[in-house]
């Protein structure tokens, strides 16, 4: 934003930046309207002030995880042992990879981790999770391919209790939110775990691909309906996609973004930082 006062042209440029970051028309108009109101109030608003206000306005839409810093992000509530995380999302977004990275981080924080291979559907999904488990050196519970995912999840939680594990992370098969039976299956996986630990899963994490456009909205909506999503992870932010759709999602559904994926390596997971995220929206790559 190279001009000194906020005018139509500046706002147009702003619109383009937000839309091309996948923020979406509704959220973009919402942000612009707020900026216009500010401009109307403070007549002499210049563009550097605009930059500050803009970042504030957008950050304000983003729910942030309470444990923001890397230090405390992998500590767990003591009364929830094992802490059960169920990972869901549409096909190919990065669920299994994120689980591998998460397991690594929890382990590095001194926690014992157990993984559950409840994607028994996608070709070689179980092998993929087992390889991740080997890579980060944590146990994985698997009944092989084509087994009943709910019984894998149940067994994983049960074994984790026996093993006195701190964290359980259950992988699930990718599914489009439009497939009713598959969405019902998720509710079932959840219910089955509750037979063993009534308040499990403690975290239902929806993984969103950072390059996804407006469909991510519907994904958030439908997965929330089926499983009450409690956190978001945004992957593939190491490319040129900005993942801006998450701003509107977080605002509308009040779900905090917990992690971002920035690569395929085990260390490529970061705790979400909304300031950095908003900053990146305005960066040209």
């Amino acid at each position, binding site marked *: 934003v190279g001009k000194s006062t906020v005018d139509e042209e500046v706002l147009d440029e702003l619109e383009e930046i937000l839309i091309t970051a996948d923020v979406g028309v509704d959220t973009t108009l919402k942000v612009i309207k707020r900026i216009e109101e500010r401009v109307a109030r403070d007549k002499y608003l210049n563009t550097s002030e605009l930059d500050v206000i803009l970042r504030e306005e957008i950050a304000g839409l983003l729910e942030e995880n309470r444990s923001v810093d890397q230090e405390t992000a992998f500590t767990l509530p003591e009364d929830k042992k094992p802490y059960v995380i169920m990972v869901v999302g549409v096909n190919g977004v*990065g669920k299994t990879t994120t689980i591998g990275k998460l397991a690594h981080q929890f382990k590095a924080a001194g926690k014992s981790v157990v993984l559950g291979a409840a994607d028994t559907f996608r070709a070689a999904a179980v092998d993929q999770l087992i390889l991740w488990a080997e890579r980060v050196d944590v146990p994985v519970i698997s009944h092989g391919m084509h087994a009943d995912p709910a019984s894998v999840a149940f067994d994983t939680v049960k074994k984790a209790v026996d093993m006195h594990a701190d964290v359980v992370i259950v992988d699930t098969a990718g599914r489009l939110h439009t497939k009713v039976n598959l969405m019902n299956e998720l509710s079932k996986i959840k219910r089955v775990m509750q037979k063993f630990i009534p308040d499990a899963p403690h975290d239902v994490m929806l993984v969103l691909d950072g*390059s996804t456009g*407006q469909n991510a909205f519907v994904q958030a909506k439908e997965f929330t309906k089926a499983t009450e999503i409690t956190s978001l992870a945004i992957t593939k932010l190491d490319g040129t996609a900005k993942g801006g759709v998450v701003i509107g999602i977080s605002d509308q559904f009040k779900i905090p973004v917990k992690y971002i994926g920035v690569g395929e390596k085990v260390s490529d997971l970061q705790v979400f930082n909304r300031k950095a995220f908003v900053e990146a929206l305005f960066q040209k790559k």
Partner: protein
Amino acid sequence: MFDNLSYKLDRAFKTLKGTGKITEINVASTVKEIRRALIDADVNYKVAKEVTDTIKQEALGRDVLIAVSPGQLLVKITQEELTKLMGGKKEDINLQGDPAVVLISGLQGSGKTTFSGKLAGQLKKQGRQVLLVACDIYRPAAIDQLKVLGEQIGVEVYAEPENKNALEIASRAIAHAKKTGKKTVIVDTAGRLAVDEQMMQEIEALKKALNPSETLFVVDSMTGQDAVNTAKTFDERLDFDGVVLTKLDGDTRGGAAISIRHVVNKPIKFISTGEKMENIDAFHPDRMAQRILGM
């Protein structure tokens, strides 16, 4: 959304007629509704602007303003323009060569491996001898995944699990195909980001060495605004021949189809509509245009 859009447009025109102020400027304001619909469908911001400029010219030329239902006519014009933009007619895959090599490329998780299997299965049904080649040497269990699919469709999968050189694997696979009389070789590759220089060099080298008759760019139909950047870079590096649009069994509008066609001008040759091996279809621009408009 179609009803929504044409309703919105009709309403906008009605208001205009009521005030007796039907002018070119007013058409511009209704065209704005179309632009918004396109952006909502994930058509790239700049592309949507250019497309709606064309639509506006067309609309003025066809006297939208005096039509009984100007909104509907405008939607119809939009639909026609989008169809034209996406290629008008359907285009086939090129399988010349002995063996004909098909190189599969795209971002992580877009659906390349699944599509490789589907294409192999389809060609096999057409009576061709096919070899699948596992050149993703990075993703955990990528080779196993392709092998499982190969088994499902009864197509041989060439892999060298210990080899970390995709070029070597692919070259030997082609020699193997020649030896065993396979007329088509489909090379599955690792997912990569356009900004990953090392990985882009790898696939560039693969293309150079294999001289494929068909290089396909596989893209997730849920992709947003970034589709243009990715498609442009992949095309600059690979000069691909066609696009595969995946995961259309969901409810995404798939505006990326327009963005990609607009920036690289390469035809979309296949669509993927599910996880099963038979979920592969030819691309129909007219249906896609309707989908993008929510019709």
